[in-house]
């Protein structure tokens, strides 16, 4: 390499290193200045400045390794500025920062295993990671773009920490005893617990029943809304989707109001006092109501994308209606039906709210895990039950994703075709319309009863009008309501952003480990909330990362649990965008980041907003994971409602639920108006 060539190499590199320089200087400042903040020994929590000081400042005197950590940063600066060949620079930076990573992990895992990571150490850790990303981009990986390689590495590490690591901790809890690996421990614990088989049987029975029923209900709605002559069908869509924005317990409460011991139907109309609803029947009704909307969404996509020309072709070839259905339509919608069924099974197994409220003696896995922690303080049992639950949902998820999902993906997300649709056969049409109307009215009555329930003194016993539950909410519920709103508002944009970024990386770039990257990021859909909850409690209660008790861990759980929705809608939206648009932007001189910002994001607005809406709603209504993570300071709406229900105060609970539903409707309306203004009506409809 001649002298002039080297010179050119250096000047272009230095120009590009601007951000590296700034980044390193800021990090150096943070790491060296922050320790002079007041030191409180014995900090327990990763995010307090005290802990930060304890970890860096305090250790500074004791361990020369600290100087190594800071030295690595300083050398990064040097390597970025001094002239050398591309390959050498990349390798120096790579190995230097790998050394830094190794040193920081060694410090916290081996030298001071009892001290948690502090903020400063986390900054350092990610600084090293970003420098590694930088070295890879110098080598020309991923078109030499540091934003993309940095995102991949950062998100990859976060996925490992917040999805894989907690699962490993659970696994460890159940198979490690006295510091030794004892796989048989798992069976021993479960065998010793008398209800294991009953719980397993209950869960599977519930999941399969709910899977079948909610698929059928979803299919009925999909056929009516997509294919019926019935002119009022458009209004039905709203009712059928209502359960999606409903907090847990609402349907459960409504069912108690209708069919419980003092229920409107059971007590008032039939004059009986029965608690038959508590157990299998109650759970099945409530879950079918809750999950039918999801299978409707899947199946309406499938039914919608059925090409009428195929049916017409079949008719012109001499087939009758039944033959056409059997040979053309059924094979085409079969993968969609399998999809809806398997996803309903996962949701049913993961559901915590309905079984805890309506289960009675009918224990299922999700509730048993909760009870074995809360009631028996038995972490090992909880972990072992968690592993059983996880392996069932995971198997179902893998079947769905790699066997069924692949076949039907295109039809679900493909752009809907606008064309004349063939109406259903008359008899089928009328019976489906009849069924779905009854179902919609039933849903409406249930929701009505919850709204009413908030305004009567004591449902079924003293039905006089009162506002006392709402007054009670103002004193009892307001703090948790505000916390919930705040955390949902913080986590929704973060969740949507991370989800869309993952969708962008996965659908636009090739990189080593992309397959596991994508799998793990979608995995959280298949991990039941209770499992995440106990996983987080067990993993982040002890060093190196101590996060339990903070609001941060709740936001983190929201982000990683609700991310898959953003990923899905993002991937579907990105599929519609020709990659040459992005390439055009890049050849016109824009960086990948600018391209993402100016070209990709404006074009996937609908996906952004559906991601936002879903993340917000799911954060507002989450219960299963957060019930393990809340503290007295970070009470959430759903946990407060559960506590009220357990205390028998159904009135306050329903009042609170009504307020939550209204809040979410207002929030969605605001987002809807926002999208309408930004991206046109169609985008808004698609987003909602």
């Amino acid at each position: 390499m001649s002298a002039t060539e080297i010179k050119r190499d250096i000047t272009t590199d230095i120009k590009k290193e601007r951000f590296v320089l700034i980044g390193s200087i800021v990090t150096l400042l943070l790491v060296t200045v922050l320790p002079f903040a007041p030191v409180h020994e014995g900090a327990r929590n990763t995010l307090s400045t005290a802990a930060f000081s304890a970890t860096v400042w305090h250790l500074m005197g004791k361990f020369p390794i600290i100087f190594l950590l800071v030295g690595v940063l300083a050398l990064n600066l040097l390597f970025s500025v001094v002239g050398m060949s591309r390959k050498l620079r990349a390798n120096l930076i790579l190995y230097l920062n790998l050394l830094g990573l190794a040193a920081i992990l060694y410090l916290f895992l081996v030298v001071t295993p009892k001290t948690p990571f502090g903020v400063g150490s986390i900054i350092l850790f990610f600084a090293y990671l970003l420098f590694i990303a930088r070295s890879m981009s110098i080598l020309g990986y991923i078109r030499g773009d540091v934003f993309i390689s940095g995102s991949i590495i950062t998100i990859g590490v976060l996925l490992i920490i917040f999805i894989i690591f907690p699962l490993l901790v659970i696994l460890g809890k159940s198979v490690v005893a006295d510091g030794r690996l004892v796989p048989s421990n798992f069976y021993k614990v479960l065998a010793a617990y008398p209800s294991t088989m009953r719980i397993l049987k209950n869960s599977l029975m519930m999941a399969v029943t709910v899977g079948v029923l909610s698929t059928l209900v979803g299919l009925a709605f999909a056929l009516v809304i997509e294919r019926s002559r019935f002119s009022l069908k458009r209004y039905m869509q709203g009712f059928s989707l209502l359960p999606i924005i409903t907090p847990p317990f609402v349907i459960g409460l409504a069912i108690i109001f209708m069919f419980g011991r003092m229920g409107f139907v059971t007590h008032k109309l039939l004059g009986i006092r029965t608690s038959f609803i508590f157990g299998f029947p109650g759970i099945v009704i409530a879950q079918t109501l809750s999950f039918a909307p999801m299978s409707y969404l899947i199946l309406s996509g499938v039914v919608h994308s059925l090409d009428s020309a195929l049916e017409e072709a079949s008719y012109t070839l001499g087939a009758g209606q039944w033959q056409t259905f059997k040979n053309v339509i059924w094979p085409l919608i079969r993968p969609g039906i399998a999809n809806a069924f398997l996803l309903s099974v996962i949701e049913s197994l993961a559901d915590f709210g309905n079984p805890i409220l309506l289960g009675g003696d009918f224990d299922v896995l999700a509730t048993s895990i909760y009870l074995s922690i809360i009631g028996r303080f038995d972490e090992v049992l909880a972990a072992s039950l968690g592993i059983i639950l996880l392996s069932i949902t995971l198997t179902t998820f893998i079947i769905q994703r790699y066997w069924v999902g692949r076949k039907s993906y295109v039809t679900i997300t493909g752009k809907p075709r606008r064309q004349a649709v063939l109406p259903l056969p008359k008899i089928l049409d009328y019976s489906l319309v009849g069924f779905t109307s009854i179902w919609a009215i039933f849903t409406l009555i249930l929701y009505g009863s919850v709204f009413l329930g908030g305004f009567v003194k004591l449902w079924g016993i003293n039905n006089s009008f009162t506002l006392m539950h709402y007054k009670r909410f103002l004193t009892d519920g307001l703090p948790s309501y505000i916390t919930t709103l705040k955390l949902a508002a913080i986590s929704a944009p973060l969740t949507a952003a991370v989800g869309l970024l993952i969708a962008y990386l996965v659908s636009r770039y090739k990189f080593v480990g992309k397959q596991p990257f994508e799998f793990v990021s979608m995995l959280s859909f298949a991990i039941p909330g209770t499992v995440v909850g106990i996983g987080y409690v067990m993993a982040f209660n002890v060093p190196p990362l101590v996060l339990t008790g903070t609001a941060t861990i709740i936001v983190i759980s929201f982000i990683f649990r609700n991310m898959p929705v953003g990923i899905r809608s993002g991937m579907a939206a990105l599929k519609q965008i020709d990659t040459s648009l992005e390439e055009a932007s890049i050849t016109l001189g824009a960086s990948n980041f600018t391209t993402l910002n100016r070209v990709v994001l404006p074009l996937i607005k609908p996906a952004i907003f559906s991601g936002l809406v879903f993340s917000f709603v799911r954060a507002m209504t989450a219960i299963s994971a957060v019930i393990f993570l809340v503290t007295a300071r970070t009470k959430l709406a759903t946990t407060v409602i559960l506590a009220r229900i357990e205390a028998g105060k159904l009135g306050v609970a329903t009042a609170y639920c009504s307020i939550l539903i209204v809040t979410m409707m207002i929030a969605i309306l605001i987002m809807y108006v926002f999208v309408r203004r930004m991206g046109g009506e169609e985008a808004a409809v698609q987003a909602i």
Partner: protein
Amino acid sequence: MSSLVMEAADLRLEKLSKNFGKVQAVREISLEIPHGQMVTLLGPSGCGKTTILRMIAGLEVPSSGKIYLGDDDITYLPANERKITMVFQSYALFPHMNVYQNIAYGLKVKHLPEEQIRQAVKEALEMVGLSGFEDRGSSELSGGQQQRVAVARALVLKPKVLLFDEPLSNLDAKLRNRMRGEIRNLQRDLGITSVYVTHDQSEALAISDKIVVMENAVISQEGIPTELYRHPSNPFVADFIGDANILKAKVLSLEGDDRARVEISGNEYTVFYSNKPEVGSEADIMIRPEDIQFADDGKGKTLKGRVEFALYQGSNIDYLIETEAGELRVKDYLTKDKFRDRGTNVSLVFREDEIFLVH
């Protein structure tokens, strides 16, 4: 206009290869693209031409080899720092921006002053004949207009090299012809070094200074259009560029440096070759359909045959004729008033100086 004249540079590819997994899309391609020239990469789909273009643009990183722009090694330079712009097959106009915003995009991301951007966009629009279209949305333009916007957007940055990726394949035949002319004139007026990818041989012949024919990841032949059309060096190029009849011939003797005496179905001809054949061997010869004529009087070195089908085209008649030397395609411009229907017995003669040994 004058301010838009480009600083152009030679582009040089050195043993460039690209593997996608186990598939080798481009194999050790070396190529020089001289200053101010329009070089076309021509070949069937999957031959690697688009991959080469994308490596030049920086959208793919080569597996091995080098790319030089002038004296600079740009092999690993990120695409957005290359000063090489591209016109895409789908035009890739940003659907959420109007014509002005599309063309101004590259200047905006460079943070140029607003006044300068306005001036440059104005000139670029004049150049492609779309003044006054600034506020149109890209969906409100016809295919040809979209194409022009795409060209203006690429030119406004004064790139050192301009790349075209099958830019005309979405246009109808008439418009395509017109756009060929416009693109070629623009490229010449600005003297901008260009690489043009197409699978359409007539497009390649029409607009190129040099054509590079590719087959299965390697260069099959390169040269100026007339040379490739008249003297293809192998049957693939002969067949790919223009219509060609490939016949078996026996090499009788060599004459001078570039001619051979051959025998085709009993007739002897003196033909050109580019690769020296062996005397006594069997070789492929090529003759274009328009270089075969009917010899109704039966004079000359005739070949007897029977019409398989005849297609009236207006300007000519296309025939497929079954002869003892094989099926021959014939384009008859001279006697097109006389339609020889299926089954007619005919005599054919070759224009001897247009027969070429392609071996």
